[in-house]
């Protein structure tokens, strides 16, 4: 049986509240919070980036997997905020976590679904017997253009998964749906992404999330009611609720994974941190459905079953809630300084 | 060992000498010392920490000899802020060996050609690059680490520590070689900007240009000179480079060891010393000196300060010249200290201590990885 042998999360300490951002841009905070269903978002410290956060979440995942890091034969870090354009994030992570030198490695990019794509590749390598374990990481220090709607949600975080045998949750099936849909993009050299406003809804997020989830249900012959938890990518709190409704998933099943309210949209880590939140509480035998979404566009859907050994492995690393609760608030001025939005 | 005396001294004022180069500074101090001595040296030792970083100039032995018109064996000696005293000690050993009868030690540093930020980075070369500088620790930060622990462990207050810069500024008001000639109050110190908590701007020695020199001679030659001052001892000790690897952050083991050996060689004890020019690169360093040089028990140094014993008029004045607080041209400092002690023992210092007969200098390298302690006696 192949699946998630270990999982790990990481969220930086600083937070900025939606009303603080609204205050600076002269917008109505209640309006913003209601329409986006978000309270606050995480902000990385001046010395954090995709690489540093990946090391933290990766360390946690390896701790839960209880394996020698040398047994990991492949490492993929998915992000849209890799520190280098040329030089992989993964090599620093691999060196710090003692995974080098015998391994396959490359960085991934597919907007917010680069992390789930990494999981699928690890799955293939493990199932084919090419590697014993694979490590898939989704991390981002997302940037939102000052004054743009995305500034309220673009956050920072990381989630890592050791894929292999003796899983604490099996990955029973996966299904992907991919098209060329330019809903959100960033050209090389640009500081901030651009998006198609309302075009990011139906033709992008909803089309792909619904098609991928539908495809997975078909493939597995399962129905929404068969799952105990469902996690969708969360660009805000509203979209996943709407998708769940359209697909026929009960609202309560979404709540454990709906972490966007507390920490914002962590992009490549987003749906994966939702999964971590579920794994932090799920019981053996329970079934989880996860569908990510990456702009450009595509969705990866997964069906998972929680196994017995999750009870003993869960406590080997901090729960996501511990990171969520360890927080300090900053104001917009410090936010701008930390996120280097000031032109020096 | 042969008897050795200081027979000539010279120094420049410490300060921001925009118009003077490293050569100019060395020439001024060197010529003054040679004139005072009336003797030409057979060997020259040059103390300098980092002309390479500050001026792109190495090979200082040759440069200074050339500047002074001395075609004699000349060697640069480096031990961070102890470079001056190390050059002095090498000159002493050169004479003690019997190979030379007259030798010269000159210290010089030109620091103001670089902007402050880069000067601060260069000074950290005195610490451990790999273990300390690489994590963004500054030299002030190193002494701040010592001060913080000391204050925490021995219940030293910020106000008490501030008494040291207050004393040294007062001492230096009449010193023509000091970089500053104004007094400060405890309040001034506590209101000055934080550099590395808990140390503030007025706890720190300045960035200075300057030079100082001494000429030394063996007994036979020294007897021909006016006012020789005898070198009773000059001892050196080494400790771990990085603060983290010291036995205890609040004791400078190198100072303890060098001073023990100096007292032993001189056949003296702390009570026999009439004044000390100590290495107050930061206020806390002088406080540690009271203890590590044997004048007070560990943790009790502040008693000497509060009671006024270390002030002029007290039983053991420290830094009557004003110390490093009033000028710290790094490589020159060790020799500047010797200049002051010699003047005191000759009876012609700006802040003359009555009846001064025996004086001590203490020069530190880095945060105490090197220490040189020397003891001098007047001729009278």
């Amino acid at each position, binding site marked *: 049986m192949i699946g998630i042998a270990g999982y790990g999360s990481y969220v930086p300490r600083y937070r900025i509240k939606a009303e603080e951002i609204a205050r600076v841009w002269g917008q109505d905070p209640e309006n913003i919070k209601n329409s986006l269903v978000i309270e606050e978002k995480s902000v990385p410290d001046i010395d954090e980036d995709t*690489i540093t956060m990946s090391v933290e979440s990766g360390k946690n995942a390896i701790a839960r997997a209880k394996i020698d890091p040398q047994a990991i034969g492949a490492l993929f870090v998915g992000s849209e905020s890799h520190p280098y354009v040329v030089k992989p994030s993964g090599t620093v992570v691999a060196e710090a976590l003692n995974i080098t030198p015998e391994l396959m490695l490359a960085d991934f990019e597919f907007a917010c679904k680069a992390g789930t794509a990494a999981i699928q590749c690890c799955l293939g390598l493990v199932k084919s017997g090419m590697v014993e374990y694979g490590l898939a990481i989704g991390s981002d220090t997302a940037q939102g253009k000052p004054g743009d709607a995305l500034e309220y949600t673009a956050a920072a975080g990381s989630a890592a998964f050791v894929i292999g045998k003796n899983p604490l949750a099996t990955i029973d099936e996966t299904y992907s749906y991919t098209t060329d849909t330019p809903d959100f993009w960033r050209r090389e050299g640009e500081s901030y992404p651009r998006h198609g406003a309302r075009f990011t809804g139906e033709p992008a997020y909803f089309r792909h999330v619904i098609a991928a989830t539908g495809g997975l249900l078909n493939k597995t012959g399962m129905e929404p009611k068969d799952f105990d938890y469902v996690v969708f990518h969360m660009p805000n709190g509203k979209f996943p609720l709407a998708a769940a409704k359209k697909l026929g998933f009960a609202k309560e099943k979404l709540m454990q994974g709906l972490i966007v309210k507390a920490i914002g949209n962590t992009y490549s880590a987003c749906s994966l941190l939702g999964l971590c939140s579920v794994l932090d509480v799920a019981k053996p035998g329970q079934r989880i459905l996860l569908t990510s979404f990456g702009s450009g566009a595509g969705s990866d859907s997964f069906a998972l079953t929680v196994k017995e050994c999750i009870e003993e492995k869960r406590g080997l690393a901090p729960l996501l809630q511990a990171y969520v609760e360890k927080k300090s608030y900053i104001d917009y001025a410090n936010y701008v300084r930390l996120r280097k939005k000031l032109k020096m | 060992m042969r008897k050795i005396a200081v027979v000539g001294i010279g120094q420049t004022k410490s300060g921001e000498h925009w118009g003077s180069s490293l050569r100019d500074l060395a020439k001024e101090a060197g010529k003054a010392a040679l004139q005072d001595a009336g003797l030409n040296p057979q060997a020259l030792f040059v103390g300098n920490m980092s002309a390479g970083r500050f001026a792109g100039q190495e090979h200082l032995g040759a440069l200074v000899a050339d500047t002074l018109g001395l075609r004699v064996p000349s060697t640069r000696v480096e031990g961070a802020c102890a470079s001056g005293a190390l050059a002095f000690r090498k000159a002493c050993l050169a004479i003690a060996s019997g190979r030379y009868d007259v030798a010269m030690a000159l210290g010089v540093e030109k620091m103001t050609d670089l902007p*402050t930020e880069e000067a601060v980075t260069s000074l950290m070369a005195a610490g451990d690059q790999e273990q300390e500088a*690489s*994590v*963004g620790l500054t030299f002030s930060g190193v002494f701040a680490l010592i001060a*913080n622990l000391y204050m925490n462990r021995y219940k030293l207050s910020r106000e008490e520590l501030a008494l040291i810069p207050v004393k040294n500024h007062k001492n230096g008001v009449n010193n023509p070689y000091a970089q500053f000639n104004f007094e400060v109050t405890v309040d001034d110190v506590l209101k000055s900007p934080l550099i590395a*908590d808990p140390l503030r701007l007025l706890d720190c020695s300045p960035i200075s240009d300057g030079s100082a020199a001494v000429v030394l001679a063996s007994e036979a030659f020294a007897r021909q000179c006016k006012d020789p001052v005898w070198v009773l001892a000059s001892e050196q000790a080494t400790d771990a480079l990085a603060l983290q690897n010291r036995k205890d952050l609040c004791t400078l083991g190198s100072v303890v060891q060098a001073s023990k050996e100096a007292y032993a060689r001189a056949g003296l004890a702390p009570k026999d010393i009439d004044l000390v020019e100590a290495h107050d690169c930061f206020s806390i360093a002088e406080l540690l000196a009271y203890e590590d040089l044997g004048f007070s028990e560990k943790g009790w140094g502040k008693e000497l300060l509060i009671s006024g014993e270390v002030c002029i008029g007290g039983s053991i004045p420290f830094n009557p010249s004003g110390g490093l607080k009033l000028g710290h041209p790094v490589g020159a400092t060790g020799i500047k200290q010797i200049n002051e002690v010699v003047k005191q023992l000759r009876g012609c210092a700006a802040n003359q201590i009555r009846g001064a007969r025996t004086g001590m200098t203490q020069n530190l390298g880095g945060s105490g990885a090197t220490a040189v302690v020397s003891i001098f006696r007047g001729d009278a």
Partner: protein
Amino acid sequence: MPHRSSVPLKWRQSRRNYQKIHAGTGTILSFTIIRTAPAGFGSCAPYAVAVIAVGNENVTAQVVGPLEKVRIGAEVMPVFRKMFENGASGVIEYATKFEVL
């Protein structure tokens, strides 16, 4: 400073330094807060630097997080952070720092 951007020097140092991320918790022996930073560290100031007892040895490292939490005797754990950016075009230097528990 030429050596700060030396690629081989930084590579060599990082190979040793990265391992500290796997050290256990430590205790702060003393700390200071650097306000006048050396070249290149200016954007991080003010930051805390401490001598920390961890395992059988002492290390000198930055302590991240709110400055008020940094105290003598505080228990700290290793975290992986950027040390030095080297401008917009140099190799980024990473290192182990510590965070108060």
